[in-house]
């Protein structure tokens, strides 16, 4: 079947026109902000649609943002919270997924359903009690608080994806290991865990993106300047310097670019991860 055959509703050119137009619509707001962040104030207003030229080029916004805010610290906070959460979710999520998908025991189905509740019910609805709990544990304004809540938030979907994945691991491997007298722990850590590696991309996307972008929990659990994540940091910074267009555009660009670069590098695995496993 070729593109020519679909002439009836719209031809190949029509398909490309629609997809191309939508791509432009999806990209130009981001592009516009990035382009203007490299211009001096006058040029931002005089000719917002132009690219920065030698005359209009300026890094004043970036200098101001780096001078007035702890941008590096926000970035570090976001990175550490996200990566530590991901590591914990992968390890204990894989352990639980393994137990639920491999062993027959009383209450297995019930426990699987229990662990899946969090896929449908947003954790935010428990915020009042989460804050109380964090206060009781003396963890307010710590990254530990964020990690604990994010681990709980990410586990249900991670366990769901990882169990689906583990069910596809051929039984021979496990049986052979058991015949050799390897313990259940040895099987999990030496045979299963390395085999799960391909699922990490999928779990990674579903775990990291919501955490990196979250405003809610940093805002209520860890709003101090020392623990602010990049999303919260940018939100507060822009609230303060709302009229300083250079700073606003530069801080947005600095929040966008790292994600964009990582996304473009990993987009292939990432989208394959979404389309192949999890949700059918």
């Amino acid at each position: 079947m070729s593109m020519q055959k679909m002439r009836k509703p719209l031809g190949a050119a029509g398909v490309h026109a629609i997809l191309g137009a939508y791509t432009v619509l999806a990209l130009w707001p981001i592009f516009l902000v990035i382009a203007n962040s490299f211009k001096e104030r006058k040029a931002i207003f005089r000719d917002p649609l132009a690219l920065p030229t030698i005359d209009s080029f300026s890094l004043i916004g970036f200098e101001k943002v780096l001078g007035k805010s702890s941008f590096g610290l926000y970035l570090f906070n976001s990175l550490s919270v996200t990566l530590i959460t991901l590591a914990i979710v992968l390890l204990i999520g894989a352990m639980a997924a393994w137990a639920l998908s491999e062993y027959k025991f009383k209450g297995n189905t019930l426990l699987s359903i229990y662990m899946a509740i969090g896929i449908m019910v947003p954790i935010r609805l428990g915020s009042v009690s989460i804050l109380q709990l964090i206060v009781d544990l003396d963890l307010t304004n710590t990254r530990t608080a964020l990690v604990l809540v994010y681990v709980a938030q990410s586990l249900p979907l991670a366990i769901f994806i990882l169990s689906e994945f583990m069910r596809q691991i051929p039984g021979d491997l496990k049986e052979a290991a058991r015949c050799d007298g390897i313990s259940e722990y040895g099987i999990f850590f030496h045979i299963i865990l390395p085999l799960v590696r391909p699922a990490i991309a999928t779990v990674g996307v579903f775990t990291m993106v919501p955490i990196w972008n979250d405003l809610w929990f940093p805002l209520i659990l860890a709003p101090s300047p020392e623990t602010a994540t990049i999303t919260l940091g940018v939100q507060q910074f822009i609230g303060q310097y709302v009229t300083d267009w250079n700073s606003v555009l530069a801080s947005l660009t600095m929040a966008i670019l790292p994600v964009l670069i990582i996304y473009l590098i990993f987009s292939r695995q990432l989208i394959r991860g979404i389309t192949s496993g999890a949700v059918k």
Partner: protein
Amino acid sequence: MKTTQTGWLGRFPWHIAVFLAPAVLIYTLFMIYPLLDSIRLSFFTADDSGAISYAGFANYVTILGDPEWRASFLNALYNNLVFFLVHMLVQNPVGLLLAALLSLPRLRLRSTYRTLIFMPTMLSVVIIGFVWQLILSPLWGISETLLYYVGLVDWFEPWLGQENTALVTLSLISVWQFVGIPMILIYAALLLIPEDLTEAAEIDGANHWHIFWHIKLPLILPTIAMVSILTFIANFNAFDLIYAVKGALAGPNFSTDIMGTLFYRTFFGFQLQLGSPTMGATVATLMFLVILVGVLFYLFGVQRRLRRYAM
């Protein structure tokens, strides 16, 4: 080998407990317990010292009975419904269209389109909110200039600032950002359709339009239903975009107030009203009920019926 064969009546299967314990503990302590405790708190009331006492349904009576509370609750619920409907009417159909085009056979640049269109979805809602705030700002004038180029400059209005347009504008910003999710999920479902089915129809002379409408669409209805319920849950739990663009007061004049922002204000207080954890828990429980109704409707009303029809 399953544990049953080693006779787990004889000895306790410690390894299963060890594998399960960390995840079950953290999940129970930081997700299930707070959700249940929030529901419990909604039946309590706090006095000035902060000590709480059982109050039955008093909080619910206040929210649904007190004229001021009821007005703001119904306003948020209605606005949230509008927010959801805009997503259902714009985001999901556009996502479906893009997915259908992307899954056409022998399409060139397929992965480039897919990657680029999905890009805004990866960015923070807060960042996207600010980006569109700048673009729609009459100060900067970008939107006006663009409308001028296409001869529609008279149409320009400060959409984000007006009571009657702010909510729909914010909904459309959210649609713009998240259209990648229905697109990618529906696209994945379209890829799973066996080629034999479509090839047979092609031999019979059906064109792509017919194949999509009569063969593919019925097969991906379960995915569309799933996308709809995911949209519902996400929308009735939304907060970040409104807070970033409009603040906790969800202005102008609460015209963009949704359940998430109402929850935040009730919990933490605003202007002259003091924050109240117990009233906040009550709003959260009401949000939970709204989401529960949606999920149950999906599980028992939609999914079952679709299962029956799917092959």
